[in-house]
């Protein structure tokens, strides 16, 4: 069975299993980014979060990010899993794992991936505060998309 590198799941994410997906004999560095549900944001307390995705397109966009990364950092291998549904404080929402022969590319490609997820992957977060709830808009505050659409290639 071909291992899926880009997934949207509804269950807790198995971090070591994701790391395993990018492990290679030629890789000396693996970076991971683990995005967790934070309790406090600018003085406001989150009780829980709800994530929704346009699943097939979200997976497709993660593969677009993979292609972009392969062009910029040719020796890297990347895997991403994003969880959706209801998540509590400290639950893991997203994990990105990148392997590379050398560490610099593993850091850079990983950070690039999370930035791009926040730009082009159709996943939405609903904050449930103590006193209300709201679907969050673009967290990058580049409202809306200046060029009329998210930049897919640079």
């Amino acid at each position, binding site marked *: 069975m071909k291992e899926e590198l880009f997934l949207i799941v509804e269950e807790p994410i198995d971090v070591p299993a994701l790391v395993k997906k990018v492990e290679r004999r030629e890789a000396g560095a693996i970076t991971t980014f683990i995005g967790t549900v934070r309790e406090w944001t600018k003085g406001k307390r989150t009780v829980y979060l709800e994530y929704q995705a346009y699943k097939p397109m979200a997976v497709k966009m993660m593969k677009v990010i993979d292609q972009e990364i392969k062009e910029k950092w040719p020796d890297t291998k990347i895997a991403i899993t994003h969880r959706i549904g209801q998540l509590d404080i400290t639950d893991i929402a997203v994990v990105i794992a990148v392997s590379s022969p050398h560490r610099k590319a593993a850091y850079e490609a990983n950070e690039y991936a999370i930035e791009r997820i926040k730009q082009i992957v159709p996943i*939405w977060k609903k904050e449930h505060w103590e006193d209300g709830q709201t679907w969050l808009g673009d*967290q990058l505050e580049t*409202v809306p998309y200046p060029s009329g659409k998210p930049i897919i290639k640079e």
Partner: protein
Amino acid sequence: MITILLFAHLQEEAGKDYLELPLENITVEELKKTLKNDYSFTQMDQIMVAINEEFALSTDIIKQGDTVALIPPVSGG
């Protein structure tokens, strides 16, 4: 007839996760105008349109059978 998928606050505003509209062969821009004027959708400026799971330009044409989705600013990660 085209099917339009809704997400996040759009889904809650509409009370359902898709719309079926008697439209076709219109541009993305025309679709957004129609949604704003005839269906009272607000903040259409901030909404991206995807056709068949790809972000579409405002001049792209929506045809019979296309899967159209309204994509509010994303907030994953």
